[in-house]
């Protein structure tokens, strides 16, 4: 069966939405059997359909776009969670909030992201001649 790019992209969106609905439903019902089956089925459907696509779905430009988007996301999310974490910890010490543990979680998460980022920079730097 021939699947063109537009049809594959549409199918991808439908599968992701369907998985989201079933997983949400499972979370509300505290039932994980159906969501797990749906996720696996969705992956199988997407992989099967992906193999039928002969059009080019990704190239160097889409990779560059995603790299830029990922870099911006990393920067903003890390800065936001770091700031939020420090603010919550500080406010909890001053008695304005009780979310000190949440603050620490955010702050540690921001640090962890930076550590992982530094490791990847080191790894890819070595691969590219550092």
């Amino acid at each position, binding site marked *: 069966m021939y699947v063109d790019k537009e049809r594959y992209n549409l199918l991808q969106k439908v599968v992701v939405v369907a998985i989201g609905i079933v997983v949400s439903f499972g979370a509300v019902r505290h039932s994980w059997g159906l969501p797990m089956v749906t996720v696996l089925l969705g992956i199988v459907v997407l992989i099967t359909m992906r193999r039928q696509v002969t059009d*080019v*779905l*990704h*190239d*160097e*430009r*889409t990779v*560059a776009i995603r790299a830029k988007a990922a870099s911006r996301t990393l920067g903003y999310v890390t800065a936001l969670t770091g700031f939020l974490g420090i603010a919550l910890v500080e406010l909890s010490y001053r008695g304005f909030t009780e979310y000190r543990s949440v603050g620490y979680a955010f702050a540690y998460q921001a640090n962890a992201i930076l550590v992982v980022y530094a490791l990847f920079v080191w790894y890819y730097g070595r691969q590219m001649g550092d």
Partner: protein
Amino acid sequence: MENDIRVLRAVKNISQEQLAQELGVTRQTIHAVETGKYNPSLDLAFKMARFFEKSIEEIFIYEDG
């Protein structure tokens, strides 16, 4: 960086979609290169040069700064 991809494509009478298929990229990438919004990698630039039987310098005009 400017380029003559659109002109060369017109000479060969092929669409962006056809050129994209020949080079193994998306039509959007060809459009982005033609309009100067995206500078292709050296790899893609060589592929384009070979396809149009030109040198890279004949297709792409590099301006300092």
